[in-house]
């Protein structure tokens, strides 16, 4: 008997949505001791299906057909009290963002205890023992201290381990993990994936693992279900789906995943240096009258060079200081030391007035396409804002905006629309057009493709690549994603704790990493043994 069997499940969307059903006649199963990955892009309905199984669907999304069987028991229309009994005891869920999934004003131990109090009749001493056992099992250091801590005192990885402990403490038959590693750094992600795999194998739990990341799929799945717009397009064994995908959509998705192998584009050695930093540092100081002054070095002694027509990648985990460097370079924050040389001129400490004419020579594209455009301004106004600031006539700026829209493959007729009328990928194209309107020499992409779905990411990467080549731009590409870095960068700087630990040509950094941290990063990359993008 399967742990979970979903047959012809349909879930309706509220009227006025872009399609009628969030899930249409989806069928799959999860066996004991098996990990099934539910893969799809945003909006494919994968989280809705998980919520449907847990009985957590919001009112606007009713189940309209099909059955959900948990160990043979039909739970499609089970009562709330029955579902409450089943949750945690027979099925449990781990969410994407552990900070919001845990109650911030309740100790971690108390939150675990709550589960046991609700579902068992154990004595306080037994509960305590069980809690410490499970905390030890999810490999948290110093269990006594962990149990007494509040969520904000733990790191993201530790919080996720607490979530997993909470989900598994009653040994459920089914664990649903909804993008549990998406918010985590790559090295932490590798540890959590390993942990889920180990626990699942030891307890024989069936796992429904929801993800958008094919690297993760390659790493842990036994079987894979691919969703597209609420429809299951492919379901089968991992090797079969990844290596011989039958459906076009699966093929396209797998083809969009960048390879970890660096590209083999010869880099022109003698190209002029557009931007260089010498010993760039940024230290955040806590100014306080009473407390001791706290200093946090965010970037220490960063020396980099970007040449015309080439791409320098800065790779690192969150908190490594890569974004700080980018923001110092465009002077969104003031560096505390070192030089930023733009075409030989030091702009690190230049006063705002003198800096202004130089700003147009470097432009930045940010990570979040939903917040990068002013929601109250049309796309046209966004694109022509920069040129107008530098005295370009309005008619000429509008003409240029139309050309730029074509360059980024968007319809120039949509210039009059507002940002909310575009999808994430389209907005990122608009942001690129806005940056290019200034005719910069240096384009900085700060995690510019990280918030995008893999297929859209491939399109935007291709666009950036095309623009770099056509306009002979220097590009500074900041990313946490090694695959993306491998695909676009000529040179790579690996940052950790504010310092550049390794810096060299991409082929060398990826092929023969010298620093231990680089090796750790590369080893942690999910699905590194799997040849993606080659098909």
């Amino acid at each position, binding site marked *: 008997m399967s742990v979970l069997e979903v047959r012809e499940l349909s879930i309706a969307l509220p009227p006025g949505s872009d399609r009628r059903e969030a899930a249409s006649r989806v069928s799959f199963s999860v066996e004991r001791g098996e990990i099934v990955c539910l893969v799809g892009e945003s909006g494919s309905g994968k989280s809705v299906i998980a919520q449907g199984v847990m009985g957590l669907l919001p009112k606007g999304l009713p189940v309209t057909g099909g059955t959900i069987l948990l160990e043979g028991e039909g739970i499609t229309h089970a009562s709330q009290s029955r579902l409450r009994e089943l949750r945690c005891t027979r099925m449990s869920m781990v969410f994407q963002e552990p900070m919001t999934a845990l109650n911030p004003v309740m100790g971690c131990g108390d939150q675990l205890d709550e589960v046991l109090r609700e579902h068992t009749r154990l004595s306080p001493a037994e509960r305590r023992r069980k809690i410490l056992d499970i905390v030890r099992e999810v490999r948290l250091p110093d269990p006594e201290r962990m149990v007494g801590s509040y969520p904000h005192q733990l790191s993201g990885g530790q919080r996720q381990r607490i979530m997993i402990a909470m989900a598994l403490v009653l040994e459920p038959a089914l664990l649903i993990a909804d993008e549990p590693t998406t918010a985590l750094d790559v090295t932490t992600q590798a540890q959590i994936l390993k942990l889920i795999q180990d626990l699942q194998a030891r307890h024989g739990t069936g796992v429904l693992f929801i993800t958008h990341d094919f690297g993760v799929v390659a790493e842990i799945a036994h079987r894979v279900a691919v969703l597209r717009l609420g429809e299951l397009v492919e379901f089968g064994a991992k090797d079969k789906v990844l290596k011989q995908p039958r459906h076009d959509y699966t093929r396209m998705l797998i083809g969009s995943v960048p390879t970890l192998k660096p590209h083999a584009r010869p880099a022109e050695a003698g190209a002029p240096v557009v931007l260089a930093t010498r010993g760039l540092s940024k230290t955040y100081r806590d100014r306080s009258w009473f407390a001791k002054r706290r200093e946090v070095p965010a970037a220490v002694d960063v020396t980099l060079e970007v040449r015309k027509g080439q791409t320098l990648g800065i790779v690192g985990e969150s908190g490594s200081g890569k974004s700080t460097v980018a923001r110092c370079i465009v002077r*969104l924050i003031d560096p505390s030391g070192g030089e930023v040389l733009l075409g030989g001129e030091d702009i690190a400490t230049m006063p705002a007035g003198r800096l202004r004419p130089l700003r147009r020579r470097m432009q930045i594209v940010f990570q979040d396409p939903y917040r990068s455009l002013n929601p109250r301004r049309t796309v046209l106004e966004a694109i022509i804002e920069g040129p107008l600031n530098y005295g370009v006539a309005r008619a000429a700026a509008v003409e240029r905006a139309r050309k730029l829209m074509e360059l980024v493959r968007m319809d120039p007729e949509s210039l009059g629309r507002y940002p909310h009328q575009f999808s994430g990928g389209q907005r990122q194209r608009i942001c690129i057009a*806005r940056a290019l309107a200034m005719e910069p020499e240096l384009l900085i992409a700060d995690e510019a493709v990280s918030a995008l779905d893999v297929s859209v990411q491939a399109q935007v990467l291709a666009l950036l690549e095309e623009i770099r080549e056509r306009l002979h731009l220097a590009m500074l590409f900041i990313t946490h994603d090694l695959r993306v870095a491998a695909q676009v960068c000529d040179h790579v700087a690996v940052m950790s704790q504010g310092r550049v630990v390794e810096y060299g040509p991409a082929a060398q950094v990826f092929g023969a990493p010298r620093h231990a941290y680089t090796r750790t990063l590369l080893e942690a990359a999910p699905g590194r043994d799997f040849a993606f993008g080659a098909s």
Partner: protein
Amino acid sequence: MQTPDPKQYEALSIEASAVRRQHGVWQRVRRNWSVRIAGAMLTVLVAVALAAPWLGTVDPTLFDPGSRDLVPGKTGEITTLNGETITHTFRMGSDSLGRDIYSRVIYGTRVSLIVGVLCALLALALGIVCGLASGYLRWLDGILMRCMDGLMAIPAILIAIALVAMWRGSLATVIVAIAIPEIPRVTRLVRSLVLSIREEPYVEAAISLGTPTWKILFGHILPNCIAPLVVQGTFICAFSILVEAILSFLGVGLPPDIPTWGNVMAEGRQQFNDYPHNIFFPGVFLAITVLAVNILGDGLRDTLDPKMAKRV
């Protein structure tokens, strides 16, 4: 490098087809029942204020010793400015000087609405300038906000009374006196909004596009503060109407010859036991107006607040 053919992907991509649909803000506002009801009430009040001379009123300053303390509905005589004596029906009775309360209440609507709207606009304008300055120019923040804290430490009515006493009562001074204590509240609101909006990537993008600071403040930050400010404005409006009535009632507001609801009530105070209509009718108008403005504020908050707007 393997550059995927963008055309091929565009066709298969989910994104290409999915364009988010959003109902326009004004469409949502118009559909809200609180806004509809309050809007209708306020429209009637504005119409009454504008059409005051044609609603069977006489000049609100006219009085006639022969028609003192009439009960509502009684007919009496009243002397016009030309010295003629005409018969007039006192729909809401008359006060101890023989003035027509109906005319005074109807004309009082003008004063109340003007005070409410102008106080709100003045407090918003000054509060926005202070809030933008202290939110964006960090060096100014400490000084400005401590001044605002000082202003907030004194009760609003006390400041208003002190200011009117200092300047002599007139419509302009009363409006300024009521608006000033409201400025710190608007400043705090704008400052908190600016502090969060200034970190938005679109503001950083504008900085790197070389947009001058004042353009960023008024072109990027301010338009994104509008919704909460509109809501705050309605509450200031309602509060100002009340404060003006209170000041007049206490005799420290507008001079007694200007017909305001507060003045009418102040004059009726002595005879409240015998002639309650002196206070009842202006009181009802005051209550309805303040209620309407507050309902409008609630409705606007429900529709304009992005957190509330996310409801399915």
